[in-house]
């Protein structure tokens, strides 16, 4: 049975989730992928790049959305760009492991309760999930139209200068289907599958 959860998510709700749970997520979430993670990391966390006034303004708008909230690793297909009457027609997850260098810091910085993506993430993120607590939700890669149907509203967009796929889309979703593949109790389906498949591979090529 799928669990229905509403964003923002409490620490208790997150601690109640285990690898393998199916969840239907509702509420407001924010897309963010490669450029956004690097931007947040370099500008606000490590402060390698000085923050402009615009950067700080966007940050102040993002903070309440991301406190106990969710970042979705997604670069959608969006119509209505000329009129700003945005509609998302394809919104599957992108591969999450590219954010591994940044994700743990980003989870801590915003007090995220989860990230959604595909392919899973590594040990650093798993340990950040344990500390937060937060979880990794896996969406189905390529199921772009089905997920787009769960988006009831495009609330706004930031950093559209990064291009449509890399921009920060603020979306309201209803019953977005995901599977917990990394939980707050240090359990990762991806680590398990990696280990088991390594054993099988070693047998086959020895």
């Amino acid at each position: 049975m799928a669990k229905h959860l509403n964003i923002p998510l409490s620490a208790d709700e997150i601690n109640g989730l285990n690898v393998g749970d199916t969840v239907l997520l509702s509420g407001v979430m924010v897309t963010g992928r490669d450029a956004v993670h690097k931007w947040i990391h370099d500008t606000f966390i490590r402060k390698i790049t000085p923050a402009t006034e615009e950067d700080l303004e966007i940050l102040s708008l993002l903070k309440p959305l991301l406190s106990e909230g969710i970042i979705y690793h997604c670069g959608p297909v969006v119509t209505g760009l000329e009129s700003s009457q945005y509609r998302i027609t394809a919104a599957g997850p992108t591969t999450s492991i590219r954010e591994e260098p940044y994700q743990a810091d980003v989870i801590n910085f915003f007090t995220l309760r989860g990230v959604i993506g595909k392919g899973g993430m590594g040990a650093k993120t798993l340990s950040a999930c344990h500390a937060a607590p937060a979880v990794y939700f896996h969406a189905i890669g390529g199921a772009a139209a089905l997920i787009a149907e769960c988006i009831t509203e495009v609330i706004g967009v930031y950093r559209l200068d990064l291009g449509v796929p890399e921009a920060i889309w603020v979306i309201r979703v209803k019953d977005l289907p995901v599977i917990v593949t990394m939980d707050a109790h240090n359990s990762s389906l991806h680590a398990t599958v990696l280990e088991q498949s390594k054993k099988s591979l070693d047998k086959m090529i020895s």
Partner: protein
Amino acid sequence: MRDYTQELLELVRLTSTDLPNPVEARLEVALANEEPGSAAQTALETILKNVAMTRKNSTPICQDTGTPIFYVHAPATIDRDELTRQIRNTVGLATQKSYLRPNAVDALTGMNTGNNLGDDYFPTIHFHVSETNELTIDLILKGGGCENVGAQYSLPNDTLQAGRDLEGVRKAALDAVFRAQGEGCSPGFLGIAIGGDRGTSYLASKEVLLRDPDDHNQDAELDILENKITAEANELGIGPMGFGGKATVLGTKITSIHRLPASFFVTVSYMCWAYRRRKMIIIGDKVFYE
């Protein structure tokens, strides 16, 4: 020369929104084989629902509409520059119509051109002279997730104990599938090139993905190897999306090209389950799509 923009636009629409039947059929077989109630089964059910929905609604199967790669076989009478212009124009139009996501990003500035038109490499257009009067254009849309898990091995490889023979090719291919885990959107398809230089080997590994998923390799030994790699990859247990399960690879195609004495490359191009590939054939006034 005639204007083929409308015909090309239909090619792009079909490719992005309507998964070829042989691919869908393999996904259906994979679904039937997974354990009831497993995450693998859920993933494949979701994938097949999505396929039906995008076919009906003419929306992209996957938001990552990838690099549009065109393979043109044109009679010598076709003006290559003009056809290039028409293809680029069509890609821009298809982006406006949201059949394609704007994907061309300047590698130095990070700027997205907004219309999928980058330099001469984006979209990618390969030209060949056709020996008949037919103009055929194949299109593959290959997303970044699966492109990122492609791999090239230089044999011999001591770690894998892979020598310069078909056994070495097999080991390299299985290693590539293992390393990809679920990141390339498994269950995927493998295009493998043996030989070439680093560049031509990658080219050939993509071109071999133009073969019909259901055909057989004309080389009997390679045909056996194709099936063996698919079967063994599925024993790795990586499964759909890397959730664990039986379906990891749905098909393997292998080609071999000439190499230098010093080089022996095995190149694996990984194609995600959303194996978006269509062909357009133009004979006189008639247009056919496969």
